[in-house]
């Protein structure tokens, strides 16, 4: 596939994903070098979104493997549809079919339940394989993943080795709840996404919410920027900014004031201690962002 760097940038922009240079470069290189891309960053900065956008842009499927504690190979690779196998055996257990034939039949594709990774490598057109929140899975799963990611083949004892028809575009995401092993890092390209700065967030808002008032947008972004500097338990991400802007636009506000912020803070902050903490330093926050109280 011939694709150049500018094209990637354009693809991402066309899908309304505002990316900076390092994002474009990482996506580009991971496609060109056929290496998985490991994306880390705080919650709500659009890590998962990259995979979704990429799948849309390449007009291919997104196969998602959500990791959780206790995830093991059977959930990620394949399982035999064992009930069906048994019923099948019962049906043909009248002596007309030879044992060898029966065995061959029941261990065929028909009874194989493909789980995300096997699914991803058996597609003709390379899909985007999103391995979400890899840091939540156990370390054993991580090492298992290493094997798959480097060889692109899966051995199923009853059938043999299945080689990848095409290498999927792999995107791994993580929140750094646990340090990932050096080995998996080395097999991937790495990208760290930070909370957006003022300009980037503003561009995102304008792209996603066309009807947004310019002044309101600026105030929201400034407020979010200051809010993220507070030491909160759950720092709001871009998703929260978007929700908030959407809500305020829907209510036809054109600017922020103290009352509005107080009433709608629940859209942005999802933790009561955070809300209390923010209210404590409210006047300081408003001063910094240039929002004046309606009364003054």
């Amino acid at each position, binding site marked *: 596939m011939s694709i150049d*760097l500018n094209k990637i940038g354009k693809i991402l922009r066309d899908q309304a994903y505002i990316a900076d240079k390092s994002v474009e*470069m990482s996506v580009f290189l991971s496609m060109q070098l056929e290496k998985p891309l490991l994306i880390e960053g705080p919650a709500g900065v659009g890590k998962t979104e990259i995979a979704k956008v990429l799948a849309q842009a390449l007009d291919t499927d997104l196969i998602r493997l959500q990791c959780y504690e206790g995830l093991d190979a059977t959930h990620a690779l394949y399982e035999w549809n*064992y009930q069906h196998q048994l019923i099948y055996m019962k049906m043909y257990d009248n002596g007309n079919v030879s044992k060898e034939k029966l065995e061959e039949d029941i261990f065929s594709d028909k009874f194989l339940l493909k789980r995300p990774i096997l699914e991803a490598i058996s597609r003709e057109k390379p899909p985007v394989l999103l391995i979400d929140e890899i840091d939540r899975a156990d370390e054993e799963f991580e090492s298992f993943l290493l094997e798959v990611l480097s060889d692109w083949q899966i051995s199923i004892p009853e059938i043999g080795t299945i080689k990848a028809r095409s290498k999927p575009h792999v995107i791994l995401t993580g929140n*750094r709840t646990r340090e990932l092993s050096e080995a998996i890092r*080395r097999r991937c390209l790495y*990208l*760290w996404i930070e909370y957006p700065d003022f300009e980037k967030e503003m561009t995102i808002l304008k792209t996603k919410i066309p009807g947004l008032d310019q002044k309101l947008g600026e105030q929201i972004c400034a407020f979010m920027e200051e809010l993220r500097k507070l*030491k909160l*338990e759950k720092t709001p991400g871009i998703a929260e900014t978007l929700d908030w802007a959407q809500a305020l636009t829907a209510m036809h506000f054109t600017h922020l004031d103290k009352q509005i912020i107080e009433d709608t803070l629940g859209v942005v902050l999802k933790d009561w*201690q955070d809300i209390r903490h923010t209210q404590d330093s409210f006047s300081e926050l408003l001063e910094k962002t240039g929002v004046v109280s309606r009364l003054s």
Partner: protein
Amino acid sequence: MLVQRQTTISGNLVQLCKFLRTKGFVLGTKEESDALIALTLLPIGNKDTFHTALKSIFAKSKWQFEQFDDLYEEFWEQLKKAVDSKTKELVEPNEDKVPTVQKPSLETLKSWLFNNEPEEEKNIAAYSNLEVLTNKNFGDMSTDEMRLIMALLRKMAKQLAHQKSRLKQRSKRNRYLDLKRTFSRNMRLGGDILKLHFSEPKDKKLKLVLLSDVSKSMDIYSRFFINLIYAFQNSYDRIETFVFSTTVHRVTELLDNHEFNKAFEIISERVPHWSGGTTIGNCMQDFVNSYGHKLLTKKTVVIILSDGWDTGGSSELKQSMRDIYKRSKKVIWLNPLAGNPNFSPDVIGLQSAMPYIDVFESAHNLESLKRAMKHLKTGRRKHLLNT
């Protein structure tokens, strides 16, 4: 190291890799070849593109991602100078060199932890190093030593967390086939085995509640203990953590959601009177009233980290300690100041609470901390029935 002038771009790339390796990047030939392939794919002559491409290939972690830009600049600076003088000595600060004595000591600590006798010929010098660490007061330790201790504690916490009971429980993972359940369940389906059932060893349901004093008198230890709690909480999910000085604060989720330094920052900002005075009695009473009904059960071990200096009255402490004692499996009080030879437990508050404490340990060094940890596994020895 020497940065030598290279005339080819690949030569320079290899130089850059060499340079980055001295700065803690882990780069092999794979990365070098990737970088070279990448260069063929990119438009020539754009400096920024070149830079970002190398960054996405060479950086492998958040730290490296942040460091890369500066190091990259530094490298080209050095190279420019090298062009003039052919070879140029690079000023190399030795800050990130790990002292060589630490490695053997970690080995010894490990084997000591598992109660293996160290092999005689191996690391005799390091063994004495261990002795020093074991009995060294936490307050006097250097950061390197602390890091060593923390790694060790994390391991201990992990072992504790994974204590398996001999009882089995149902499991969705394919661990052990539960024959009894498999047969009985499949009888309903006509006797053919259609669905397999599995079991796994049941975790011992030990619950931990940690109450850590963060008042002024505990200042040098509180950071350490919060770190300890953090290590614990990351490998043990049935744990509730509180900090107190004049009021009690639940910090369980905070420690769950953030990396240590951030969590510590938030805690010290949130908790009023951090490093102020203590009213242990009130705090314990508070704890019992607000959380006791939920957290205190006969499977709960309560660990209190405090020096017992109380600016409040002693009767509240006695009363609340009695409540905690009655409703828990065990009460462990860790007092780092007790490691001081001049210490005598004449703090009135503490004395009144003494009857309701199962284990009293100083926990000011590794040895005593390890002793205290042992108590977590066992039940209560003495019983106070008449109180």
